[in-house]
């Protein structure tokens, strides 16, 4: 749609993976909502203040669909979260249906039952780390390749009923669909990813399993409006969201814990006792990706001193909101003692991340196991020199070199 604008363009430049782009705080100082330009070059509102972020995420006057999708601001050239989704008229009904299908599989009780399996998988990852260290004692071990990536990907593959042996394929597609200026390559990767999920679904129709794809197929069989495209897009989205995000949090959490040896020692002395609050602080402070959550106004809304017009794109910068000094004392400090810690890492309101219990469970197990096994873990590189993948929707780093 319209292009010419002098508003700052996302993603903003950040100094290193631990700190946010300073422009977020500068914009917040001027007001809770600012005019910005999306990575795709279209106008949008950026929400940087905690109160307004939480209000908008919990307000049904903001949705993911658009009254006239062809006129909507595009966010990026990635194959997901790049523009409006779903039907404007049926948005609520479609969302309710999707939540109903998925809630049982991602519920906290189900995660409790899954915990021992996640623990086994985590222990396997740590064994791999030990082996890598023994094979090449002078080389730092890349925690990203041996724990942060494989653990979440194995867990989500099991949950969805997808073969582990395809994980390199899945990794490739996931990376390509999340590139902000991915364009036709991102679309092609999404099409291949969906075709793959279609084949998985075909196999599950013949031989149902105890997995989320089978759950989705049951609902699809009873609902003629639930198309094959809806089904494969949902399954591909779950696989993407189910590992990219958790993977970056395990990387960033490790960095935050290792930056300060006293912080690491405190955690390593009592991982079980400290892990719950520590994971929440890691979720608040780690800021993979530079965009945030995307909404479109369903009607004109007065908020934060501005009028957001019907159809306007709104990017809720949850990373910036999580460091709003009005909501969190010393917002840039890592302080697992904050209580309560009502961060927005999983969003807020009706679209709150359905995978939050899964992510929290994986993170708790990963950090507890990691620091039980390697209490003297240390970084083998200056974390401030690590490159963050600002070109990716989910951000993240590819290397977290560690020694012990």
């Amino acid at each position: 749609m319209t292009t010419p604008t002098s508003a700052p363009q996302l993603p903003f430049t950040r100094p290193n993976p631990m700190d946010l782009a300073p422009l977020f705080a500068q914009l917040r100082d001027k007001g809770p909502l600012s005019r910005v330009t999306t990575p795709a070059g279209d106008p949008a509102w950026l929400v940087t203040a905690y109160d307004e972020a939480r209000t908008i995420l919990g307000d049904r006057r903001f949705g993911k669909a658009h009254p006239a999708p062809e006129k909507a601001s595009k966010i990026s050239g990635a194959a997901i979260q790049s523009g409006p989704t779903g039907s404007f008229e049926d948005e609520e009904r479609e969302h309710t249906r999707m939540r109903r299908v998925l809630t049982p599989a991602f519920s906290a009780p189900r995660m409790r039952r899954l915990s021992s399996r996640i623990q086994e998988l985590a222990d396997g990852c740590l064994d791999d780390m030990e082996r890598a260290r023994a094979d090449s004692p002078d080389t730092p071990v890349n925690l990203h390749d041996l724990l942060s990536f494989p653990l979440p990907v194995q867990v989500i593959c099991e949950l969805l009923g997808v073969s582990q042996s395809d994980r390199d394929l899945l990794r490739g597609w996931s990376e390509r669909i999340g590139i902000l200026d991915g364009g036709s390559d991102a679309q092609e990767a999404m099409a291949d990813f969906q075709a793959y999920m279609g084949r998985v679904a075909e196999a599950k129709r013949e031989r149902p399993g105890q997995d989320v794809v089978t759950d989705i197929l049951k609902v699809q069989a009873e609902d003629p409006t639930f198309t094959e495209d809806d089904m494969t897009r949902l399954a591909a989205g779950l696989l993407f969201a189910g590992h990219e995000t958790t993977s970056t949090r395990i990387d960033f959490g490790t960095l935050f814990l290792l930056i300060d040896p006293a912080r690491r020692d405190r955690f390593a002395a009592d991982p079980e006792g400290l892990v719950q609050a520590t994971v929440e602080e890691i979720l608040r402070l780690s800021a993979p990706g530079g965009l945030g959550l995307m909404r479109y106004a369903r009607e004109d809304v007065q908020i934060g001193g501005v009028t957001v017009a019907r159809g306007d794109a709104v990017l809720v910068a949850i990373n910036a909101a999580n460091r709003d000094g009005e909501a969190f004392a010393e917002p840039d400090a890592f302080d697992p003692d904050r209580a309560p810690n009502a961060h927005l890492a999983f969003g807020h309101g009706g679209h709150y991340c359905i995978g939050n219990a899964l992510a929290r469970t994986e993170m708790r197990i990963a950090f507890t196991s990691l620091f039980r096994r390697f209490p003297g873990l240390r970084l083998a590189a200056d974390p401030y020199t690590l490159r963050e993948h600002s070109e990716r929707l989910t951000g993240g780093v590819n290397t977290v070199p560690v020694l012990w």
Partner: protein
Amino acid sequence: MQVEVDRDKCVASGQCVLTAPEVFDQDDDEGKVVVLDDTPAPAAHGRARQAAAMCPGVAISLRDEGR
């Protein structure tokens, strides 16, 4: 501390169960919040406060805070 929930507002996130498992559970059917202990012991108050603050549906309220 008295724990009250509004199940109509609950969005079945399950964060409360993970945060304060001695106070909250989810039902099997819809995943909506179930209160296990509406007058939790002081040791659980911090976790209950975290669960209420995080609740994405603002479905949890705590009365007699601080007593």
